[in-house]
Structure formats: C-alpha cells, structure tokens
C-alpha cells in the first residue's frame, strides 16, 4: 500500500483499534491501516491473562489473549494493513499524521479519516502526592501486571495495594497465587472501586483484607520500600490522628485510576472533556475535528472490554463513511447535560438523526434510582454505582420525538420510592 492512499488510519491496536479497523473495512473502506507502537496487535489484552472478557460480546468467558486472538484473526483475514513498532508522534487538525519506526524512519500520512484508539494510562504516585522517601518498590498495578504476566518478574514478597480498582484487585489474586503475601488493599472511599465480582473472587476468596476509608499517609525505606503508614480517613478524606498503623511491606502497588491518553488529541486541537480527559464526541464518536473519530479508553475509561469493542465499532463505521463521502452531514447539535448525581455522559452531544449508545457514570452510589434521559428514556435501577457504567441505547425513532425543538437534554438519576 502506498501511504498516500490510506482511507482510514487507526492509531492503536487494542480491542478498540482492532474493532474500529474491522468495522471500517467491513463498511467498505478500501485501505485501512493500523499503527501500533508495540510489537504485536492487542494492546492491554496481552497482559490480562485472567478471564472475564467477552461475556457480552461473544457470550463466552474468555481471557484477554483469547479475546485479542479473535480480533487479530479477523484483522488479518480482512487484509487490513498493519504497521507494528510504529509510534504516531504527531497529528494535526487537518488529519496529517507523522509516525516513526526503525524500518521506514519517519512516515507522513494524510488519511481521509482517523480513528483514535490509544487507550489510557495509569495515574502514578506523582499525581497522588504521598509524602515519604523515594525508594524502589512502588509500581502502578498495570505495570506490575505486565511484569508478572508477560515478562516473568515478581515485583516483591510482601505487597500493599493502594486503591481497589479492578486492576489492583486482580493483581491481589494473581500475586497471592504466585506465592506473594498481599497484606491489604487500601481504599479511601467507603466502597470498593471495582466490580463486585472482583471483590468477591479476588479478595474474599483469598481472605485478603480490604480496608475501606483508609489511605497510605507515608512510605518508609531508603533503597527499597520497607513499610507504609496507613490511617483511617474522615468524610473529607483527611487522615484521622491516632489511627495510624505501620504495615511492613517491600512493595506498594497503586491502583488509583486511569486517564485517557490524550497527547495526540491535544496536538490536533481536539476539544477535550475537562472532567474525563478524553475528546468530546458526538454519537458517531466524531471529535471536534472533522474526520477524526475516537473509541475505547481513549474517550473514557470503560469497565469491560465488550463495551470498548462496541464503541470503537461505531467510530470505525463512521470513519469509513467519512472517508467515502469526504465529510458527514452535520445537523444542529443537542448537548447532554449531566443532572442530579450524574458524573459523566458519553457522547456529550448528539444530532438526533441517528441511533445513540450512551455510557453514563453516576457520582455517588445510590439505591433505588430512576435514570432519565429527557422525557425520552427512563429506567429503574436497584443500585447505581460509580464503578459500574450504565449503557443506554436510544434508537433514532425515539430521538425523532424531539423534533428539533431542544438544544439540550437533561440526564439525571432521580431517587425512587
């Protein structure tokens, strides 16, 4: 393929990138190119050797590599072009893209449309500001996962995990099974950050203590971590005097959240959602820059991979259309307004002219609630939790009821009886 002929360029080959590329190809885009900085397709899936992938998408409980495998085969079967070990370093507002690898050197592309699928990165200690020394032995949970599952290193013998996100809990189980002593999982909030399934199967199953409303206040050790001080926190998340205890350990894992990878998006002048950190998108997953689409964790962090694939298919499908037509018809926009107890909504705007899949996160855990999207949609939930994203499908025939009258739609979580 001549690089001058690329119809759809996909940046990143995780579940999002592969699903977008496959969909774009299936919808008739001739030259689809995936650019991936790693030496293989699949993104994060390779280090997720546990199961829990694909229950919704395939109706089967797969491990990360098995889930990746199905998409990789399809990418190959469809004749999608792949550039591995290729890092995209620049993206401009008119879709000019620069990438670099050791075979071709610098590569300049001007694809007809682009799909961003760069995933997310983990928050690290710098963003947390825990006082203390700077010894070795502090890792993000995802880095530890890569070490243990791909590279074959055990990060330490006695581990404390800060944050009860899914990755942290999954690593608690994985390390325990590798013979490591996991001393405790420490969570500052009054509830677990990840899925209930992971709390039960990763922590309870192995009697790993979970300390809610606690945090790490100090790290001890010169060369290597020797201990951490933990303390209970009050409702403003401030450590309570006199509740400190020292826990001996040689390793601290941080599982304190993920943020969309947004360097290229910034470079291209794409408007970002200040709260989520990913690009603002419409229901086609088109960003503020025409012809640049986005899907998966680069837009907002998903809990499960099935949603990543589905969302990216939307982006891939519209990227194919854009590459064929040169532009998309844009109707007046309707903005989604987060109302009571709503933290975030993706997409942030819709046209009202095509089907919409919304992903909604609440701010606080609440029992017996009613989720409402304007007057168009209403559903009751036994419980709504920040850790479990809510997915809502609104077909275009429902949206037609708006009749172009509204420019805003309120999304809220009302308290039920």
């Amino acid at each position, binding site marked *: 393929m001549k690089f001058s002929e690329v119809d759809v360029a996909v940046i990143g080959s995780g579940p999002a990138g592969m699903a977008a590329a496959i969909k774009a190809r299936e919808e008739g885009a001739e030259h689809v190119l995936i650019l991936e900085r790693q030496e293989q397709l699949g993104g994060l899936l390779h280090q997720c*050797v546990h199961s829990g992938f694909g229950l919704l998408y395939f109706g089967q409980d797969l491990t990360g590599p098995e889930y990746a495998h199905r998409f990789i085969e399809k990418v190959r079967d469809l004749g999608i072009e792949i550039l591995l070990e290729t890092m995209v370093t620049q993206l401009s507002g008119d879709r000019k893209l620069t990438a670099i690898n050791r075979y071709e050197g610098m590569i300049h592309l001007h694809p007809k449309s682009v799909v961003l699928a760069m995933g997310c990165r983990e928050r690290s200690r710098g963003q947390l500001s825990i006082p203390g020394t700077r010894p070795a032995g502090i890792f993000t949970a995802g880095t530890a996962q890569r070490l243990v*599952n791909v590279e074959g290193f055990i990060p330490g013998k006695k581990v404390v995990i800060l944050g009860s996100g899914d990755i942290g809990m999954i690593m608690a189980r994985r390390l325990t099974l590798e013979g490591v002593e996991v001393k405790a999982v420490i969570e500052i909030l009054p509830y677990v950050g990840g899925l209930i399934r992971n709390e*039960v199967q990763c922590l309870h*199953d192995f009697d790993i203590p979970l300390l809610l409303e606690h945090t790490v206040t100090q790290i001890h050790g010169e060369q290597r971590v020797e201990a951490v001080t933990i303390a209970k926190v009050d409702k403003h998340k401030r450590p309570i005097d006199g509740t400190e205890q020292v826990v001996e350990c040689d390793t601290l894992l941080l599982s304190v959240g993920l943020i969309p990878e947004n360097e290229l998006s910034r470079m291209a002048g794409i408007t970002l959602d200040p709260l989520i950190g990913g690009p603002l998108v419409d229901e086609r997953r088109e960003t503020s820059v025409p012809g640049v689409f986005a899907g998966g964790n680069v837009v907002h962090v998903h809990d499960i991979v099935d949603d990543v694939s589905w969302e990216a298919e939307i982006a891939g499908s519209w990227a194919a259309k854009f590459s064929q037509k040169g532009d998309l018809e844009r109707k007046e926009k309707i903005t989604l307004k987060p109302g009571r107890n709503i933290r975030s909504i993706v997409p942030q705007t819709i046209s009202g002219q095509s089907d919409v899949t919304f992903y909604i996160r609440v701010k606080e855990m609440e029992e017996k609630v009613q989720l409402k999207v304007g007057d168009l949609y209403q559903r009751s939930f*036994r419980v709504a939790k920040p850790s479990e994203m809510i997915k809502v499908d609104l077909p275009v025939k429902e949206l037609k009821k708006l009749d172009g009258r509204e420019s805003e739609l309120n999304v809220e979580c009302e308290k039920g009886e």
Partner: protein
Amino acid sequence: MVEEKIVCIGCPLGCETTLKMDDQGEVVKITGTKCKEGRKYVLEEHRSPVRVFTATVLTQNSVRPLLPVRTNRPLLKTQLKEAAKVLSKVKVQPPLRMGQIILPNLMNIGVDVVATDDLVL
C-alpha cells in the same frame, strides 16, 4: 445449625447473605437476598463455588518468557492455590497453538490445562 455467609454478585448491590443449614447440610433458610436471581446465585455458590482458573507457565527455547494458560473447566475455589503450585513447576516449548493441552489431568481431577495464546517462537 451451620451458617455460611455469601456475598451475592448477581448485581452491583452485592447483598451480604446468610445461609442456614440443618444437620444433614440441607439449606433451610436464606436471608439477606433482595431478589429471586440472588437466591439462585447464592444456592449455586453454596453447592459448588467454582472459578475459572488462569495462570502463566514458564517457557523454554522461546523469545517469550511466559505463556498464558487456563483450565478447560472451572475449579473449586479451594483448589486454586494447589493448581497454581503445580503450574509453577511446568515448562513448555514452542510451537504451541491456542487451545492446545499443555498439561492433561491436572491434580488427577480430570481437568486439562490449555494454552490461551499461540507460542510461535
């Protein structure tokens, strides 16, 4: 009477439930569940608390240090640690295909361990 506490994972609520058993081990009472699906789940979890088992095994003569694996059937949760111990002593060599058995009849319980990825080189 014997009691067992089980957290239901049927939905995000995560109800803390208690099962009471009579002397024959029959469940006579379930408290704490908030719905029918929840009762079904905790009964099943009481009878047979099984988990999908995944791990990695060391490789030889390969550019990759590890190969991810799983059992072809779920294990009882009480068998997980033992299974991990057994697998920590296993070494495999390329070429292997995803789905191929790398260790038959794990712990003599009639469960096979299979590769969850190809090991080409």
